[in-house]
Each structure stands twice: as C-alpha cells, then as structure tokens.
C-alpha cells in the first residue's frame, strides 16, 4: 500500500515541484548553479588547480627557476636540454614565455629548413654535426608515450657550394677543416660538376664543395611541434605573454685589480598578457634570452648597453631583425630529383621542393639593398632584378620559370660577425643568451640548446666548447667571422 501511495504522492503537491520552477515566477538557473558548485568542489580535489576566487589559469606561475624568453626552436631546445640534463627529475622549474603562439613572425616556421656542415669555424661544424645526429635519432630523443613518431621529411640531398676563382683557396681550406671535424664533404672540379649535374652552367666556377652525408633540408615546423610536445610532457610550463620589465638589483663589487664593477641580478620578470593590461611578476633565478630577431629589445630591458659607449656597460647586443625573402617557382624542365641545395657564387641559392617541378630559393641582399624590417611584405621586384638573373645564369633551364608564391622571414642578424651569441652576460649575471645566429639558428638549435643547458647547470661548456661565442667578444672586439653564410 505504501508503495502505491508514494508514487501516487509524487504525482502532485509540493513534491512535484521540479528544479527550475519556483513559486513566485522568477527562475533560478538551478542546473547552472549545480554545475558551478560541482566545478568548485572538483577544483579543491588533489591534482587540479585551485580556482576558488579568481581564474588564473592563463597567467604564468609566480615562481620559476628558469624563464626562457622566446618559444622558437632555440628556446624550446634549451628547455628540452635543461630537462634532460637536470640532476634529479623535476629539479628545475622551467617557464617558456612566447608572445605569439601562432608563430606567425617567428623565424623558425618561416625558415627554408636547411642543415649543412660546410662552415669555416670548427665550432659551427661541430654544432651542425651534432644537430644532424639529433635529427636522425629524433624519435629516440623526442619520444613521447602514446604519441605518433615524428616525420621530419628530411631530404638528404646535400649542399653544393660553388666558388669562383678568388674564393677557391678559401673553400679548399674550409673543406680541410670540415673533414678534420668529421664532415663528409667532397671537392669537385667544373668538369666533375658538369658530369654529375648536367643542368649546371659552370661558367665562373673554379671549385665546388658537395656535402655527401648529413646535409639537406627538413621541415622546421615538425621539429618545433615535436620539441613542444616533448617539452610539455617533461613538465615545462608555457605561457603566452610578452616580457615587459625586468626587476633587478645591483651590487657594487671589486675585481681582482681593485676596479669597481656593478653586477646586476634579475629577480623578477613581468609578463604581460595578450591584449590586456594584466601582468604577472614571475620570480626567477635565471633568464634565457632566446627571443630571436627581437633579442636586442629584451637585452635593453635588462639594462644591457646603458652606459658610455666603449665600455662593457655600454656594449649593446648587436642583434637586429633583417628581412629575407624566399620565392617558390615552377620550372617544368628544371633540375631533376638529385638536385642538392645549390648556393651560387653570387649568393643566390635554390633547392627542389617536392615531386612536382617546384623550386624555392632566394638571395641575401647586400648591405645597401637591405629591406625595411618593419613588416613581412614581399618585394617581387627583388626577385626580378637581383635573384632571377643569377639563377638563370647558373641553371639555363631557369630562364623559363614562373613564380608561384613567396614569403619573407626575419634573420636574427648579428651585425658584429654573423655568428651566434651564447652564454651569460658578464654584468647581468643571470641572463644567458641563445640568439643572433643570422640564418643558421635552426640547424644549430639542438647543439646550442645543449651548450646553454650545460652552462646553466654545470657552469661551463662540456661537450662543444662555445667560448668564442660569448658576449664579451663584442666588447673586446674579437670577431669570429664565418665566411660561408648564405
């Protein structure tokens, strides 16, 4: 009987009032309130971030051991190696601050993606060799459980550098250094060149150096995404924001020769959120400047370069953005599948792209022709006047070509000697640089990341000695000129 009464009783009266309907007319969003309460209770449970009062999930954490300014391939490489080389799991807390998560202007995504060992400096060669072995074993280094393996789309076709009469001797000595370091490079005379690559016009070429192994080009976007995925799985925190201020403290100290020097230490990094005035002060121990083309601004925020010119305090970071164009064209009778990345005596370069007869290439402008780096607009006249004539001279088949598209990207150009800046600043003691590679940052990123991580964790370079790349060379005037910059 009771059983019959209860459902009967449910049918009418007070008990029938369903949630959301109340006497009096106004409706309370009962379901919404219940879900909000559920969310708050869930956020108290262990393993979730506690957002009881204010949602701060978009802000970076308040404390971090290392803050890496710039989330391109160099910044992520430093983050990866910091996590790989730390002495205990979870010992170092790393935060990567990237202004633009779409990487629309970052040099990494816009890069041609070449890797070669044909440099004149032994350190550059060693860095490229290590990076080649890193890319070859990328699915061991960047393996993440349950994630598909990375396909870098590496083309092992090599680089072919051409030298005129006056550069031939320099090329020979460079190749000797490269072979000593372990790169597999072969020298070719114009006859051998014509034999191997019949589409090439050897007029004006005295010598050519051809990389046989570990050289070619790959997809930089894939490397970036792979690094990002691995680094996130290792526990590195990411934040989308812009660094606007460094809060530092100074200390006056005496050197061994009793000269007074002011040493600065950065304590806080102010990270401003995108499209808002909100900022978060992040207390940090070490700051790594991997901001690429904008590294000089970050350095200026830290007070590097504020002083009388000619002194160590007054030495600015000589890295500035330089715009470079890359053009994609179609040429039906062009060079075949075996085409390496050819770098002409005039500085023009091109390589094949894909199976259809598409090629891409460009040329570095001279100092006088430098385009304005304020935007990434492409100048098509530059191709007509400055690139095409050289290409057509070198490869007669390129006289009939049709430009399909073009893009522009920045080089983080080191105006001092076009080589990277790696290591700590002598005065701002906890800022480390990993920038200024002037167009070969992508191919040296794994090696440089490891070197900076060793510097941060162990205090010195262990595997590859990059002491010639320290900041102090700008003050001392010691240029380490790299001759083979494309």
């Amino acid at each position, binding site marked *: 009987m009771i059983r019959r009464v209860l459902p009967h009783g449910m049918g009418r009266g007070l008990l029938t009032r369903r949630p959301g309907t109340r006497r009096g007319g106004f409706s309370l969003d009962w379901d919404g309130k219940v879900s909000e309460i559920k969310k708050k209770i869930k956020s108290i449970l262990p393993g979730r971030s506690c957002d009881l009062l204010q949602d701060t999930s978009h802000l970076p954490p308040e404390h971090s051991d290392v803050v890496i300014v710039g989330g391109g391939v160099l910044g992520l490489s430093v983050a990866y190696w910091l996590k790989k080389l730390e002495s205990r799991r979870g010992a170092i807390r790393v935060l990567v601050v990237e202004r633009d998560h779409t990487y629309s202007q970052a040099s990494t995504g816009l890069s041609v993606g070449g890797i070669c060992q044909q440099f004149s400096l032994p350190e550059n060669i060693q860095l490229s060799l290590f990076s080649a072995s890193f890319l070859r074993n990328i*699915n061991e280094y960047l393996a993440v*459980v349950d994630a598909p393996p990375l396909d870098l789309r*590496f*083309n*092992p076709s090599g680089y072919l550098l051409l030298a005129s009469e006056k550069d031939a001797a320099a090329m020979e000595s460079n190749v000797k250094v490269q072979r000593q370091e372990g790169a597999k490079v072969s020298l070719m005379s114009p006859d051998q060149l014509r034999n191997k690559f019949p589409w090439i016009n050897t007029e004006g070429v005295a010598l050519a150096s051809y990389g046989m192994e570990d050289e070619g080009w790959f997809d930089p976007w894939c490397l970036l995404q792979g690094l990002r995925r691995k680094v996130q799985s290792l526990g590195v925190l990411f934040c989308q924001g812009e660094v606007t201020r460094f809060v530092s403290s100074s200390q006056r100290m005496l050197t061994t020769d009793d000269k007074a020097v002011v040493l600065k230490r950065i304590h806080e990094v102010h990270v401003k959120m995108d499209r808002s005035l909100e900022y978060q002060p992040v207390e940090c121990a070490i700051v790594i400047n991997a901001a690429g083309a904008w590294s000089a601004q970050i350095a200026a925020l830290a007070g590097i370069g504020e002083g009388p010119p000619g002194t160590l305090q007054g030495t600015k970071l000589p890295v500035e953005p330089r715009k470079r164009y890359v053009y994609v064209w179609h040429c039906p009778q062009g060079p075949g*599948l*075996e085409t390496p990345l050819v770098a002409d005596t005039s500085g023009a370069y091109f390589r094949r792209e894909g*199976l259809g007869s598409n090629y891409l290439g460009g040329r570095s402008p001279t100092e006088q022709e430098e385009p304005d780096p304020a935007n990434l607009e492409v100048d098509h006249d530059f191709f007509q006047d400055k690139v095409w004539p050289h290409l057509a001279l070198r490869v007669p088949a390129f006289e009939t070509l049709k430009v399909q598209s073009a893009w522009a990207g920045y080089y983080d150009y080191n105006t001092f000697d076009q080589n990277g800046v790696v290591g700590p600043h002598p005065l701002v003691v906890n800022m480390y640089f990993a920038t200024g590679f002037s167009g070969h940052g992508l191919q040296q990123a794994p090696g440089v990341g490891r070197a900076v991580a060793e510097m941060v964790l162990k205090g010195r370079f262990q595997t590859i000695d990059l002491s010639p790349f320290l900041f102090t060379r700008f003050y001392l005037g010691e240029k380490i000129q790299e001759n083979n910059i494309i």
Partner: protein
Amino acid sequence: MWDLVLEDRRINSLRLVAPMWNGRIRGIHRLGGAVAPEGNQKKKRTILQFLTNYFYDVEALRDYLLQREMYKVHEKNRSYTWLEKQHGPYGAGAFFILKQGGAVKFRDKEWIRPDKYGHFSQEFWNFCEVPVEAVDASDCDINYEGLDNLLRLKELQSLSLQRCSHVDDWCLSRLYPLADSLQELSLAGCPRVSERGLACLHHLQNLRRLDISDLPAVSNPGLTQILVEEMLPNCEVVGVDWAEGLKSGPEEQPQDTASPVPA
C-alpha cells in the same frame, strides 16, 4: 601485457604497413580475421592510456620500456671493429649480416644462410679474404649505425634491404661508398623509405636494377618511378605496379638476388 603495449606502439609507428609485413609481431596481431582481439586491444589501449595520463609511475615505466626497445636495436647494430682487425672487413661484415638473420654470398661460393634457430655455419672464417658479392638483409634490424659494417664490403654487387623496418632516408644517403661495385639494390617494402631518400641514390651510377616496389611512405609512386628513372638512366627501375594490390610478406622471398647481375 607490456608486450602487447609495445607491439601496439610498433604497429602505430609502422601504421603505414599492414601488420602482416612485420613478421616479428606475434600472437593476436597475426589473426587478421578475428574480431574479438581487436576490441580487446582497443580497451586495453585506452585503460593503459588513462593510467599513463594520471600516474607518473606508469608513464615512467612505459617510457623506460620504449627506450629499452630502442636500445635493443642499437645493440644489434654495434660496429664490429675488433672482428674487422682480426678477420678483415669481409669477415666482420659477413658475421654482422648473419647475426642479424640475413644471408651472405662470397664470390664463387654458395649462399650462407642462418637456419630458423639463428645458427649458421662458421666455415666462412676460413675464406674471409674472398670479397662478399651479395648480401640479402631482408627483414633484418639494420639501422644507420649498422650500415658501418655493411659499407666495409667494398666489392658488394647485390644488396637486398627488403622489409627492413629501420632503414630510412638517412641510411640511403650513406650508400654512396658502394657506388663503384653495386649493381643491384632492392628496397621493397621498407616502411620508412620515401622519395627523399631515393633522391640520393643518384651516386650509384653502376646500378643496373633497382627495386622500389611497395614503399608505403612514398607519396606518389608513379611519379617517383619516372623521376628515379630519369635520375638513373642506365638502371632498370622495378616496382610500381598497383594492379597486383598488396603482396603478402612470406611469399616474397628474394629468389632474384641469388646470382649477381652480369655487368
């Protein structure tokens, strides 16, 4: 249970190839027709994934097992420098291939193959001054480092790398030292070889026969065949014939590499 997980991952990484190709995967993966194991597999995979996402220990264990698998392949591909000093390059190279499960043919001698237990006759140590003429390394775990041993065989005429799951584009770029002697090369069924690796075969100017059938990573096989034929004008490029459909692994024994192609 961990074996299933790892073989899962191997399937994921070789996902472009039908499971039948990789003969090492045993057990339920070979039963292509059965329905129940598939569903079981999927459930096991998601439970494992759930555990991995929530517990650091499970993730670390799986990571360790993955690294151990990779380490095993590296162990197999060590460079036999001591053997080379003792018995010369041909002996060391032959030993490496036979250890991996491949077959070797010295000049004017018969093929030496390991039996199904992996044992092979040791008499080739007596004639290791004789150059090795042909190598059949099908279904072996040779990778980039292992090619060190292979590249010592300077008079190699025929090389078969069919269905080698660790041979990729980087390995192909390393074959140029064999350019003077290599006349026959077979890359059929290698899941990691793409048209980008085939582009660096142009160093092998003495190549007369190249087999590039069933390369799942090549994006456009017909076009690739045409471009490779243009690149190697003296070579017969075999392989792209989609009318046959999927070939099954065990039937495709490399009988054609029994004798070297006359120059």
